[in-house]
């Protein structure tokens, strides 16, 4: 079961990185994170109806001076590929993609997604890190954001179910 403690720690990492807008679409494993986002007054939570919108939302937020992240399952990452390419990469927009790594080891629900997620990110040229130990979260979220702004592109953090 997703844990509230893990969710609080990850949200704290986003806050410490100065991320103030998070767009999201749920997965069962992301419920605690999304509830925690809604309860948090420092972060504007924008619940989406399809993930590709989130690339646009994060872009709009960035253009107006806010640091933004998009929280979704890996199926949503696939839904977002056009906007990632023709908006985020085209205009060099930094953002953090927090992606539940469905179909990764230990998750039997979406084996096909598990196989294509990393190759798709690689093809897009989006730097990708895997969060498999919660103690690494501050370094990956903070460092990932610095890298996103330095490279001027999205950076993906794949969330193993184990950390949630």
């Amino acid at each position, binding site marked *: 079961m997703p844990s509230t403690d893990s969710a609080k720690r990850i949200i704290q990492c986003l806050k*410490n*990185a*100065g991320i103030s*807008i998070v*767009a999201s679409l749920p997965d069962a494993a992301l419920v605690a994170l999304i509830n925690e986002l809604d309860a948090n007054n420092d972060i*504007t939570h*924008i*619940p*989406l*109806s*399809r993930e*590709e*919108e*989130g*690339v*646009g*939302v*994060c*872009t*709009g*937020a*960035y*253009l*107006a*001076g*806010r*640091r*933004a992240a998009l929280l979704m399952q890996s199926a949503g990452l696939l839904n977002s590929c*056009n*906007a990632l390419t*023709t*908006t985020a990469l*085209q*205009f*060099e*927009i930094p953002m953090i993609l927090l992606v539940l790594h469905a179909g990764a080891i230990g998750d039997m629900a979406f084996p096909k997604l598990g196989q294509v997620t990393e190759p798709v990110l690689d093809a897009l040229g989006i730097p990708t890190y895997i969060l498999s130990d919660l103690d690494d979260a501050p370094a990956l979220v*903070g460092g990932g*954001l*610095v*890298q996103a*702004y*330095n490279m001027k592109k999205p950076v993906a953090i794949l969330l193993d179910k184990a950390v949630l």
Partner: protein
Amino acid sequence: MKRFDALKKVVHLFNETPCCVTVGAVWVEWDTLRPADQSFHLKTLGSGSSVGLGMAMAIPNRKVGILDGDGAVTMNINGLVTTGRVRPKNLIHMVFDNKIYESSGSIPTATAYNVDLIKVALGVGIKSARRVNTIESFVDAVENAFKTDGPHFILAEVEPVGAGAPATYGANAKRVDDVEGKYRFMRYLETLEGRKIYEDAIDVKQSLR
């Protein structure tokens, strides 16, 4: 109504309003009427409602404009769904409905058949949704959008530009690289807002807690 004629009558209202402009001839028309730096020029068809929404949420005390088309809106109906859920008060979403994908070969869009975008907007919870088909009613709708809380959805039924495109197209609209256009837009917003908008990696690194 011709879109270019309609835009001419409202452009002065947008003097301090950043805009997101969809892919197509509306780009050129809007940039002919006001400095291109005051708009973000989209590349992903349909992304206007989403980029505009993110911008509106980021600067809630300033109106944000979206210049959109029927083909773009029907490609990303989700943007309306989220707008109806989040309801940013400062968003002015103008959709110019010519019922065709004019910039990509003039094939009919869904609005040429059975789609009623006003019903869609109202149905997803955007309470201010108005259809206009004269310049006077368009000006009235835009004026109202500046005076009252939104989100506002204005569906302007327009003629295709066709072969009658103004000869001035492009005369004032200097083409810039997409990334340069982004920076120009952010610098424009900095001037408008009177604060730092653009951050580089050092800014971000130094701010980490």
